[in-house]
């Protein structure tokens, strides 16, 4: 029996190629993402482990998880270093003065920092045996006018020793001359680094010659990190500062970088998931068709005495072989993919070494589990069907198995699951609680997807009758035959189209959601933004006071209202503690924004000691006007603020700003004294035209490339761009899903062509031209692809509308259906059909007529 299996596998290897390709793709993405993240993790673990000081002393972590940074830098007194040095077991101490997210510009006012979102870090220069860099040319910086630049940035931005750069620090800009180049001895995580001498870093970056962002401690030989940490903590007071050993610091550094790496890992695993899911359809279809074509052969095996179990095992063994081959190739492809990703990271400035690729034990295990699992699961149903072939099939000219079997079970299961899914989606649409709506949405999406996959074959007849309805009229008998060929085996058509459907449903849903979000924000911006211009960083990062001053001094600028953010934690009357980001504004807010109030007004909310919040948030947490709520600011500063206004805005929440908390600039200046402005709302002075002001502002901001001037339309673009990032990811996923779906359509068509060899021979004999034959196959392919697209779009639009219902609970009330995308997807799917049909059609038209007629 094993011999028969092997023979059969080898005999059908051509037909298994595309299935194997699907397995290879899934496994490649799984193993590639695992190898990549293992490599990155190992590289950075090593980096952090080798560069962390034995013990570090830093400012106390206040656990405020606000998403919008205030721009303030937490510091400790530099004099701590002397106290620490006296602790028994301390060999050496260094004062650290480092600031992230600073802007450094060259002579042309262009930022030298990375454009990829990685930070520009300015820090003080000292060398220990733990330093990740070494001085490769020039000399160390000395005095306020000198700096080192890292070699990668210097090379990329064409900066040489002797050039002058401007550091746009929070306390004020200052010029530095590059006196040396520092080169990474370890992996460069992609950041740009500027080194100053310690006093300059303290006074110019932190604004205080006695401040430090931390103290790095080297232990005496033989003194354990943990023990030393305890001693230092005892000396300085256990709760006063944050103490970390080298291991702890490496862990927390890895964790902060881990967020970014996790995103890459999950995106990759998302790709792997889609590839696997779509691959399953492909494999199910291939095995179903192979078994259908081998009905007589299987019948003969049964007639010769093979029992059902043996037949089933034989098919499963074939699947296992396919899985084995596919997994092995996929693992190899995964290594290649990881290699490519590592090189790509290099292009973005993160210099991982592909020679240090880490292939953990888990990777091959995962690869084979996925590869074998997928093929085994996908081949199981066809294998069971194969086992039910009766010995009589060997003797009779049996109709292809499976084509005519009733779809009653599918109808029943699909109906029940679909009804449950629909109920969940309706529940989601009716729900008024974001949490439950989101979970109902997830459930509904999964259930309706499963239902559509199961019931897909039932929809083949009605939908394709309509889709292909015009074919006979348009293309005559060629059109009629292609439509009927697509209807011939609804299971096959359904499974082929399902592969395309999954990807398109996702994309349709996401594009409805993002279009609705964009429209909601557009509406909101139209309604609320009253200022002529907004000056802001495109990533909403804060900027130095200097920018504000320069904008105020710009000719033609009238009112300037500042916006600041502060991470806060509020204790509410219902006992809940909410961590969020609060905004602070200058008093004349009403002149640059149209805020709708349920109770109170801007003037009340922006006075010192007052607080405004969203009316719904207030209601939810039993807050009423006039209540006093305790608010904790960074650094453990507590305030009691009186609720003086309740706003009734559509998009009160969003971007991590739960509750829509806001107060006056006076309040934030008191509790976060070193904060920076995040946005400036600027109105033209009377008699000054908007264009004139804009030109002036742009001239002013020329020296500050991190901020831009935007009017209402530009501001909408900015918000749109943020949402679009989400879409790009979805489009990439879609691209992969389509590639695999095309493979599926090619596979189905190719096997159908083989199955219909005699029919094709007959058609050619009685006068069907080669071009007509190709058109027939092409039309069948198109109708299958469009069928998949129609199902996917229908499903996706329903999902999208439900997603919008959830968003509406967050205030994003506008619903927008991107009809352009919908039409593009339908046209695109027709193109996919044409492309998928190329090879099978060519193959069919090249068939020898006589051989085809004589084909068994």
């Amino acid at each position, binding site marked *: 029996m094993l011999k028969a299996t092997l023979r059969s596998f080898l005999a059908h290897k051509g037909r298994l190629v595309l299935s194997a390709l699907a397995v290879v793709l899934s496994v490649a993405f799984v193993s590639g993402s695992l190898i990549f993240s293992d490599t990155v993790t190992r590289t950075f673990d090593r980096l952090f482990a080798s560069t962390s000081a034995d013990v570090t002393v830093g400012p106390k972590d206040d656990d405020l998880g606000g998403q919008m940074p205030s721009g303030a830098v937490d510091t400790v007194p530099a004099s701590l270093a002397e106290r620490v040095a006296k602790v028994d077991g301390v060999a050496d101490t260094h004062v650290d003065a480092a600031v992230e997210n600073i802007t450094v510009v060259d002579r042309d006012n262009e930022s030298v920092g990375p454009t990829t979102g990685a930070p520009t870090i300015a820090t003080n220069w000292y060398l220990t045996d733990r330093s990740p860099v070494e001085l490769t040319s020039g000399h160390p910086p000395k005095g306020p006018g000198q700096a080192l630049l890292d070699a990668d940035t210097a090379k990329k931005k064409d900066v040489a020793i002797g050039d002058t750069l401007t550091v746009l620090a929070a306390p004020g800009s200052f010029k530095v001359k590059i006196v040396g180049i520092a080169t990474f001895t370890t992996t460069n995580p992609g950041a740009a680094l500027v080194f100053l001498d310690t006093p300059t870093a303290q006074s110019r970056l932190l604004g205080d010659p006695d401040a430090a962002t931390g103290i790095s401690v080297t232990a005496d030989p033989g003194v354990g990190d943990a023990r030393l940490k305890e001693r230092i903590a005892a000396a300085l007071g256990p709760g006063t500062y944050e103490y970390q050993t080298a291991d702890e610091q490496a862990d927390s550094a890895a964790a902060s970088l881990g967020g970014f790496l996790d995103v890459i890992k999950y995106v990759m695993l998302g790709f792997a998931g889609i590839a696997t899911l779509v691959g399953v359809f492909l494999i199910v279809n291939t095995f179903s068709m192979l078994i259908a074509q081998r009905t007589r052969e299987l019948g003969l095996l049964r007639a010769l005495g093979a029992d059902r179990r043996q037949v089933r095992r034989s098919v499963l063994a074939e699947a296992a072989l396919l899985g084995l081959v596919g997994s092995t190739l996929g693992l190899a492809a995964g290594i290649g993919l990881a290699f490519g990703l590592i090189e790509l990271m290099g292009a973005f400035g993160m210099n991982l070494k592909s020679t240090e690729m880490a292939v953990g034990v888990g990777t091959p295990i995962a690869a084979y589990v996925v590869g074998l699992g997928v093929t085994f699961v996908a081949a199981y149903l066809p294998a069971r069907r194969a086992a039910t072939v009766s010995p009589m099939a060997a003797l009779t000219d049996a109709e292809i198995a499976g084509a005519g079997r009733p779809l009653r079970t599918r109808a029943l299961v699909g109906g029940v699951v679909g009804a449950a899914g629909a109920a969940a989606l309706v529940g989601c649409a009716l729900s008024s609680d974001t949490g439950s709506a989101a979970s109902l949405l997830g459930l509904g999406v999964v259930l309706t997807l499963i239902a559509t996959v199961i019931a897909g074959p039932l929809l083949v007849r009605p939908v394709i009758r309509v889709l292909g309805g015009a074919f006979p009229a348009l293309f*005559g*008998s060629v059109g009629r*035959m292609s439509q009927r060929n697509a209807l011939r085996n609804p299971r096959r058509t359904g499974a082929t189209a399902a592969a395309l459907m999954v990807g398109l449903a996702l994309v349709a849903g996401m594009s409805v959601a993002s279009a609705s979000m964009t429209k909601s924000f557009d509406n909101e911006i139209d309604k609320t933004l009253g200022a002529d211009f907004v000056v802001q960083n495109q990533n909403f990062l804060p900027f130095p006071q200097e920018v504000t001053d320069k904008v105020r001094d710009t000719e033609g600028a009238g009112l300037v209202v500042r916006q600041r953010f502060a991470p806060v934690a509020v204790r509410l009357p219902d006992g809940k503690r909410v961590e969020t980001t609060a905004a602070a504004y200058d008093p004349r807010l009403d002149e640059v924004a149209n805020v709708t109030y349920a109770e109170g007004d801007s003037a009340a909310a922006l006075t010192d000691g007052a607080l405004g919040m969203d009316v719904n948030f207030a209601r939810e947490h039993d807050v009423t006007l006039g209540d006093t709520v305790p608010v904790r600011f960074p650094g453990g500063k507590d305030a009691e603020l009186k609720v003086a206004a309740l706003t009734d805005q559509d998009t009160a929440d969003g971007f991590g700003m739960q509750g829509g908390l806001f107060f006056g600039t006076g309040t934030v200046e008191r509790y976060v004294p070193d904060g920076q402005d995040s946005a400036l709302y600027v109105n033209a002075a009377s008699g000054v035209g908007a264009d004139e002001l804009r030109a002036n502002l742009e001239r002013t901001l020329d020296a500050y490339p991190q901020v831009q001037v935007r009017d209402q339309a530009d501001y909408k673009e900015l918000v749109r761009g943020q949402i679009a990032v989400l879409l790009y990811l979805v489009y990439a996923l879609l691209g992969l899903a389509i590639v695999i779906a095309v493979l599926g359509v090619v596979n189905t068509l190719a096997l159908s062509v083989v199955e219909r060899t005699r029919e094709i021979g*007959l058609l050619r004999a009685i006068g069907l*031209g080669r071009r*007509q034959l190709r058109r027939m196959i092409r039309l069948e392919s198109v109708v299958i692809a469009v069928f998949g697209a129609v199902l996917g779009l229908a499903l996706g639009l329903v999902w999208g509308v439900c997603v919008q219902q959830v968003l509406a609970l967050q205030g994003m009330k506008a619903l927008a259906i991107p009809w352009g995308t919908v039409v593009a997807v339908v046209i695109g799917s027709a193109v996919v059909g044409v492309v998928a049909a190329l090879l099978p059609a060519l193959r069919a038209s090249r068939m020898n007529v*006589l051989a085809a007629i004589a084909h068994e």
Partner: protein
Amino acid sequence: MSTAAAEHSLGRAEADGVAARARGLTKAYGSGETAVLALDSVDVDITRGRFTAVMGPSGSGKSTLMHCLAGLDTVSAGQVWLGDTEITALKDRELTRLRRDRIGFMFQSFNLIPTLNAAENITLPMDIAGRKPDEKWLDQVIDTLGLRNRLRHRPSQLSGGQQQRVACARALASRPELIFADEPTGNLDSRAGLEVLGFLREAVDQLGQTVVMVTHDPGAAAHSDLVLYLADGRIVDRMEHPTAEAVLERMRLFSGSGAQPSALDPRATTDGVGAPADARTTGPTDLDKD
């Protein structure tokens, strides 16, 4: 025998020319020393308005001859004309058109497109060509073949005999210059086979068509006007106005050593002499089964 043959000629238009012609038709498979000659310089004329049967043992080249005459296969040497068209000079696209517009086909089995119903199958060649069928003629063909109430049926809903009748109707529907039938009764029981042969006969007699049929069944061949015998790629004999017995007798001469058992066949000797014309249909059919 001659009476039967005379009956065939009755009511039929006079043979008015040559429907297809081959000169020096040679078909070789393989090349060099291993080459096998399937057809060895065959000269043949297919007379218009007649029912010609091509007989011969397996491997005699009878199917190859038909395929070459019908433009389904390429030739190694020689020329083939359909009417005035030299088809050996045509390219695939022109050959496809020729088959579509000027030739009708019936095969042993799998004659119909399973997704199309009987009516759609019948008009398929004309639909492919984008031509309107001649409704009057079509009605006549459908009625002659008794398919009127089967037109909406799919092939899977038809019996084997009905399927061959639909194939026959398709071959006739476009009023082709020539109909090729490759073992049209090979897959049918004797009753259904008889029916189909009767229709082919009628197509020639009543509808004035030209039919070439490849068969190894003397009983089937007996329905024709002329039997051509092929052996080793050559036409070795011809018989006008055949009967089953005469055909069988002739086959014995050509089938060489393999023919001995049938020489002892009691039916062949007892029924062979003086049998009525109708008896040709009951002749042994297992003579040349391969």
